[in-house]
Structures are given as C-alpha cells and as structure tokens.
C-alpha cells in the first residue's frame, strides 16, 4: 500500500466513523436545529468517505463498500477522536467538532495542492461543503468558549486527534452496528 492510498484510507475512515457518530444525535439533539445540523453533517461526511473510498478502491480494490464495511475493526485507521461515542455530552461533542474541523481544514488544504489532479479536485469539491461544517463549529465555539466544561473537553480530547490504529472496544461495537445489515442481508449496499 502506497503512502498516498494509506493517507486516503485514513481520511475515509475518519469521515465514515465521524459520520456515524454525528448521526447518533439524530432525533435526540438538544435543539431541533442541531438535530438537523448534525444529521446533515453526518450525511456529508459519509458522502465524502464514499468518494475517498472509491478513489482508494482503484488501487486496493474491490469497491468502496468493501473497503468501508468488510475490513476487520482493527484494520481501520481512523483517529481515536472520531471513534468515541459522545452522546449525550453536548460540550464534548462540540469540542470534538471544533478540533476535527480545524485539523480537517489543514488536511484538505494540503490535499488541494496535490500533484494528483483527482485527489486535488476531490479535495477542492469537499472543501466547498466543509466550509459549512467549519462555520457551524465556529458558531458553537464562540458560544461555548467561556464554559469551563467545554474547555475541559477540549483539553481531554485534543491529544486523541493523532492517535490511530489502536483497536478499541468502542470502534468494535460501532463496527458491529454499522455492518449488521450488510452482514445479514446478501447484496446489501449503502
């Protein structure tokens, strides 16, 4: 596996797993607006994951679906930050959202400069959508920044951003949930 495809797989895993975690707020967010926001962000992140997996599948095969769902939980390379199940902790959720979107902005900016035109083009397309995630994170950061609980969550979660590839029970549980239909219904796709 080349470094490049490994990097793409990391991003795809991050977006897929975070998308699932964000969707856990669907129906139970503290306000209707946030229910809609986190559901919509989840939908975008999973769409980005699919596009990255499709790119990775050209080298690794066979398809985006297989890469997303048929690897073992210990083969995922997502950040520890996105694996955590944070519902119903709103302060920690916003802290993760802010940390992730800030780091993701840098990563996308670098990918937009890639010599590989497909990677650069996809990164630029994704960036147009991510701009709205960043605005949402910014809005909540401004609202919560003086809250001690929020600051504590930021301090606690920040070091987890760069932890990858250490199998956790939380990811294994999420994987069970995420792949249940696929494993039980022949031919099931996204």
């Amino acid at each position: 596996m080349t470094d490049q495809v490994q990097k793409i797989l990391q991003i795809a895993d991050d977006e897929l797993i975070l998308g699932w975690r964000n969707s856990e707020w669907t129906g139970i967010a503290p306000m209707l607006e946030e229910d809609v926001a986190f559901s919509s962000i989840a939908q975008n992140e999973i769409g980005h994951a699919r596009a990255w997996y499709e790119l990775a599948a050209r080298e690794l095969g066979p398809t985006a679906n297989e890469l997303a769902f048929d690897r073992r939980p210990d083969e995922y390379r997502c950040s520890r930050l996105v694996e955590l199940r944070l519902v119903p902790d709103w302060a920690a959720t916003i802290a993760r959202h802010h940390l992730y979107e800030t780091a993701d902005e840098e990563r996308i900016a670098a990918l937009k400069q890639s010599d590989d035109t497909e990677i650069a083009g996809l990164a630029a397309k994704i960036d147009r959508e991510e701009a709205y995630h960043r605005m949402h994170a910014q809005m909540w950061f401004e609202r919560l920044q003086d809250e001690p609980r929020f600051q504590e969550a930021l301090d606690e979660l920040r070091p987890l951003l760069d932890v990858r590839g250490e199998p956790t029970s939380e990811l294994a549980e999420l994987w069970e949930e995420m792949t249940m239909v696929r494993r039980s219904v022949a031919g099931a796709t996204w």
Partner: protein
Amino acid sequence: MSENSKHPTGQPRRTHGQSPHVLKTGTASGALKEEQVWDALAEIPDPEIPVISLVDLGVIRSVDVSRDQVRVEFTPTFLGCPALEVMRDAMAARISALGADPQIEVILDDSWSTDRITPAGREKLRAGGFAPPAPREVGGPKLVQLQSNAFRCPYCGSQDTALENIFGPTPCRSVRYCRSCRQPFEQFKTI
C-alpha cells in the same frame, strides 16, 4: 457570476447548434441528435427540488452522441446527496427510451458550483419558494455573511432576513426567516 455568463444555458456544447458529435446511424430514419438528448434530460426534475431540472441545475457537464451510445458527464452537487443515484438512473432511463445505450460518467472533481445553476433555474427556484444561491465569492462563503442581511426573501423580496440554521432538510439548503413577511424559507447554499 462569471461562470454563468460563460455558460448561460448550462449547455455549452450545443450553443452554436452545429454539433460535431452527431453521427448518422446509417439505417435509422433519424439519427439521434445531441440536442434531443439535452431536451430529454431537461425534462428530468431534481428528485428533491422538482421545480428545477437537471439541466437547470447545471450538473450535466457534457453530452456526446456516438452511433447508438450516449455518454453523459455528470457532476454531483453535494457528495452525500442521496438524490445522485436517482438522477443517474433517471438519465439512463431517458436515454434508453431514446433508443440509445446510456453511459453516465460521474465526475468527482471540483467543476460544479452553485454558480452553474442557470438563470432560468434560479428563477424557477425563487418561484418555488427557494431562495437561489448567492454568487460564490473568492475564498467561499463566510459565517459573517450568512449572519448578515444580504439574502432576499423569495416570497416578499425583503432583505430583512435572518439565518435560522446553516443546515436544512437537505445538504444543499439553509433555513432563514423573513422578518418582513414573517415567513421561514429555504436558502440554497452557495458552494
């Protein structure tokens, strides 16, 4: 709006009416013309905002007719939009109905932006109660702009509108509120 002025109809390849891609099938009484394909695609409504067609939306980048094959380059709007598969299948069905073999190629690059929505499409959105997207500026949209009153209510035309939610019922929409006619409305996001 520079992109719109370059592609005023969203159909750059047929604007001169003399397509180099129209080939005769030899036996058929009328060979399929590129324009017929564009016309057929222009009848497909957006699955989630049916007031606007796929051609109005600017997601069809090119149409090439070669013998009995029609190749369409299709650029998704939002990557997580569940309507994409529906759009792709609808295009394939329309082209099959014209008696040709459809090849729909999904292009995952950065060539679609809301500036690709045609002027006619923008007007249809407005008439349907969706505020059309603001033109994209260099550097993309900013929170301070969304929170400003630079957006016009599609019902009464007032600019006295406020951001209610950056996100809405589909990835492409935000929700705003008009303080003048007291009507909430959906604002197409600029991307």
